[in-house]
């Protein structure tokens, strides 16, 4: 077996050809006119594949333009140099030594249109590369890569010569007996002057990692297709040897389909927009004698861009909803405006974003970072964007996230005409804060997650303003002396909440637990959700999957708890049809063990054509009309939403 590392190193030396301390050059020719020298130099570059420099020097009273090539220190390469010169018919060359301080020299490039060479194919033990062109400007090398429509892989390598760098477009590796045909194909495409980069050793196209080469320029491309960033292919004999450390390079970004990356600033940004009209129909005017028909429309756009080979990400997601009835539901939010920087074992996310914590389905006790977008959907699944700085450490012992939450988002509430809503209006114009900093308080959170085989665990702590308010009853008076309307004022306490969540698989059963303990909002209390999820694949001989979720919701504040799940059972059925339209239906039944009240919700969705999706939602409450939640009887509704993706 061959020693691979020395082979690579030799190739590196060959291609990078550092100028020796002695500064010896072979003079290939001397000219009186600079243009003649450049023209001849271009021809020499094409013929020899050597780096050729134009050196302007006074000889007697005139300026002479000399074409030089640097002489390698290693005698092996000196032999090769001589061989190349001889093959190009350059016989009368002589050696020139220059002082330590090198004068300015111009690098001569092959002018493709000037070159007309019969390149000799060399019998090398490994495949050789065909140099299709060499350029100083990155754009030109890029352009040539785009032009090439060969089956062979094409790569760009950067070569440094006497401090000047330029880029070679390489085709190959090409077997010795195919070189002539590849060159012929290049000529057929109008690319003349290609030459064979040859060596007696393996040639590894060496791309300097720390140079300002864009990921695209590192890449191999299959021409004729969108540019896909890839790393150059080392030419090796793959004999099952494997050494990731040696091949470890900076990661390249995921190729984005349809993207033709050109700029050095990474992948071009990408926009995605969806517009969704929706209609809600209520079964009854309800306690507040409101309308039954609620039309609305929302628009959300996503801008997403990566650069530095995917190590930096920018995302911007604005959201707007217009509601035909409820002016409080007409609202704008920045769901995401974030810059993410990714390193090997940490990630820094700065800006507005959304994070999700937890494992259960019926409610999300542990999930506390983002405020609920309550007017969007009373089910609590929609969230408002939260400004934050989030450092994520990815280590062997798990992922540890630190959050600095810069500022507080108030919960929004339906307005006077909003539905469904509480019998009393929530007046969120002047909420009460425990913190004197009010909504400008900086909150903190930390979360650790890890998994051990089939066990997934998370432990988290949050210290800050509660996302969930208490309410104070108050009278809203527009004019002094006139009895006002009773309203609810949100009160935001400063709380500490510790949460634990776990999920464990036993066969195809997923057992789930979320538990929290919270202080700061009255007495310390605890709450938990636990249960299982099991999926029946191919139920009743169909292609569909039926997922069954059963969870118990507990809160030790009992009936005083300002939440639905204080002693409740949730039963959910998710049917996935497994058809091309991605049709699914989710039926959830939430039953209060103490009061016998229950809430039933249905959500079904299906894609229509390539760019529409239809969502049907229904909500039905059954309880004692005399009870605290009795008003909710008349808030049953059906919602139909059509999402159009652009």
């Amino acid at each position: 077996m061959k020693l691979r590392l020395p082979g690579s190193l030799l190739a590196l030396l060959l291609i990078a050809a550092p100028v020796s301390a002695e500064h010896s050059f072979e003079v290939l020719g001397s000219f009186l006119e600079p243009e003649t020298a450049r023209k001849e130099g271009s021809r020499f570059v094409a013929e020899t594949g050597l780096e050729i420099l134009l050196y302007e020097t006074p000889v007697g009273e005139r300026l002479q333009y000399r074409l030089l090539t640097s002489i390698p220190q290693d005698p092996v390469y000196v032999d090769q140099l001589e061989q190349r010169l001889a093959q190009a018919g350059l016989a009368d060359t002589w050696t020139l030594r220059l002082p330590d301080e090198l004068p300015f020299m111009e690098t001569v490039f092959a002018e493709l249109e000037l070159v007309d060479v019969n390149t000799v194919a060399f019998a090398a033990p490994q495949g050789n590369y065909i140099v299709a062109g060499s350029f100083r400007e990155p754009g030109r090398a890029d352009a040539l890569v785009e032009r090439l429509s060969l089956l062979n892989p094409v790569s760009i390598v950067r070569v440094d010569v006497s401090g000047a760098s330029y880029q070679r477009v390489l085709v190959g590796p090409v077997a010795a007996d195919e070189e002539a045909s590849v060159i012929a194909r290049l000529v057929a495409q109008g690319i003349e002057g290609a030459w064979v980069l040859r060596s007696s050793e393996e040639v590894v196209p060496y791309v300097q990692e720390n140079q300002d080469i864009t990921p695209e320029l590192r890449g191999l491309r299959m021409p004729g297709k969108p540019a896909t960033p890839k790393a150059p292919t080392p030419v090796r004999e793959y004999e099952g040897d494997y050494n990731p450390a040696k091949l470890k390079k900076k990661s390249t970004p995921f190729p984005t389909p349809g993207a033709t990356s050109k700029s050095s600033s990474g992948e071009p940004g990408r926009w995605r927009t969806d517009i969704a009209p929706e209609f809600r129909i209520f079964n009854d005017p309800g306690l507040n004698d409101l309308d039954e028909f609620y039309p609305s429309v929302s628009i959300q756009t996503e801008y997403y861009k990566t650069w530095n080979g995917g190590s930096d990400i920018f995302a911007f997601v604005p959201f707007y909803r217009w509601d035909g009835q409820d002016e409080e539901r007409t609202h704008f939010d920045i769901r995401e405006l974030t810059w993410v920087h990714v390193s090997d074992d940490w990630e820094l996310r700065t800006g507005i974003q959304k994070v999700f914590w937890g494992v259960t389905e019926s409610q999300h006790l542990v999930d506390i970072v983002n405020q609920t977008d309550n007017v969007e959907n009373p089910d609590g699944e929609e969230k408002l964007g939260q400004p934050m700085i989030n450092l994520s450490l990815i280590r062997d012992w798990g992922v540890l996230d630190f959050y600095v939450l810069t500022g507080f988002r108030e919960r929004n509430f339906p307005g006077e005409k909003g539905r469904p809503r509480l019998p009393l209006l929530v007046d969120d114009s002047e909420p009460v804060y425990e913190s004197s900093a009010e909504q400008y308080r900086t909150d903190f959170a930390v979360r650790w997650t890890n998994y051990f085989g089939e066990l997934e665990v998370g432990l988290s702590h949050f210290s800050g303003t509660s996302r969930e308010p208490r309410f104070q009853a108050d009278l809203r008076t527009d004019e002094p002396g006139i009895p006002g309307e009773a309203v609810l004022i949100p009160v935001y306490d400063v709380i500490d909440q510790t949460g634990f969540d776990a999920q464990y698989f036993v066969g195809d059963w997923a057992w789930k637990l979320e538990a929290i303990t919270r202080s700061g909002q009255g007495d310390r209390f605890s709450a938990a959700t636990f249960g299982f999820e099991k999926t029946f694949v191919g139920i009743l001989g169909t292609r569909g999957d039926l997922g069954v979720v059963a969870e118990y919701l507990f809160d030790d504040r009992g009936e005083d708890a300002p939440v639905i799940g204080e002693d409740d059972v949730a039963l959910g059925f998710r049917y996935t049809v497994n058809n091309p339209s991605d049709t699914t239906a989710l039926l959830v039944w939430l039953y209060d063990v103490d009061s016998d009240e229950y809430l039933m919700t249905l959500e079904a969705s299906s894609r229509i054509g390539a760019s529409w999706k239809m969502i049907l939602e229904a909500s039905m409450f059954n309880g004692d009309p005399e009870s605290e939640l009795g008003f909710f009887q008349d808030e049953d509704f059906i919602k139909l939403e059509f999402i159009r993706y652009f």
Partner: protein
Amino acid sequence: MKNLLVAFLVLLPFGLAAETPEEKGLAIAEEADRRDQGWVDMQVTMSMILRNARGEENHREMRLKSLEVPEDGDKSIMVFDTPPNVQGTGLLTFSHKVGDDDQWLYLPALKRVKRIASKNKSGPFVGSEFAFEDLSSQEVEKYSYKYLRDESLNGLDCFVSERLPTDRYSGYTRQITWIDKEHYRVQKVDYYDRKDKLLKTLTFNNYQQYLGKFWRADSMMMVNHVNNKSTELLWKEYSFQTGLSDRDFNKNALQRTR
């Protein structure tokens, strides 16, 4: 001891005397596996074309990144680009030679990463004729083998073997594989359902060689004989050894890829 025996068998040329059909079947699978080692990492885009019995088509596009993990199964991330209702949905898989794979699903609308039961492997993958298990990393250890016969398929001399899934949660009793003798590439697989009835046939078309060693089919066609539906996978823009590492295959990476 068993490992020693296996290693010994692999070193022997095939067809040597005293080799049972089971030993030969395993040796073929191991040779195919050995020939596909060393690709390090891979990125590719995939078009999935779903066709129903009436020939109506439905398209999905996704991107796949994989990392070779020596001594264990591969790691992979698959992200959907189209259709738009599933755009950004991701699937992270740590496959294992022994034991269950670990799988996480990313739901972009909720920003939620959900660990899913890899036991549900027999279900259809996004409405296609491929089951999750058909697309998972085909580790040697996931089956037991039996060589059946030599047979010519499309002009290629092939080994025909039977393989039985070792996991009882598999949707199949057995699979019959055609592997060509020259390059040890899977050419065709017949899948038999739990009632041992021929359910599906997968054929691999237009194999291309990458890096002078690794063979990948441009097209994989799965035909369901029961419902006459088919799913074709078209693989495009393969690239290997792109410098991916573990940091590209964790839950954080799953969340940021969209």
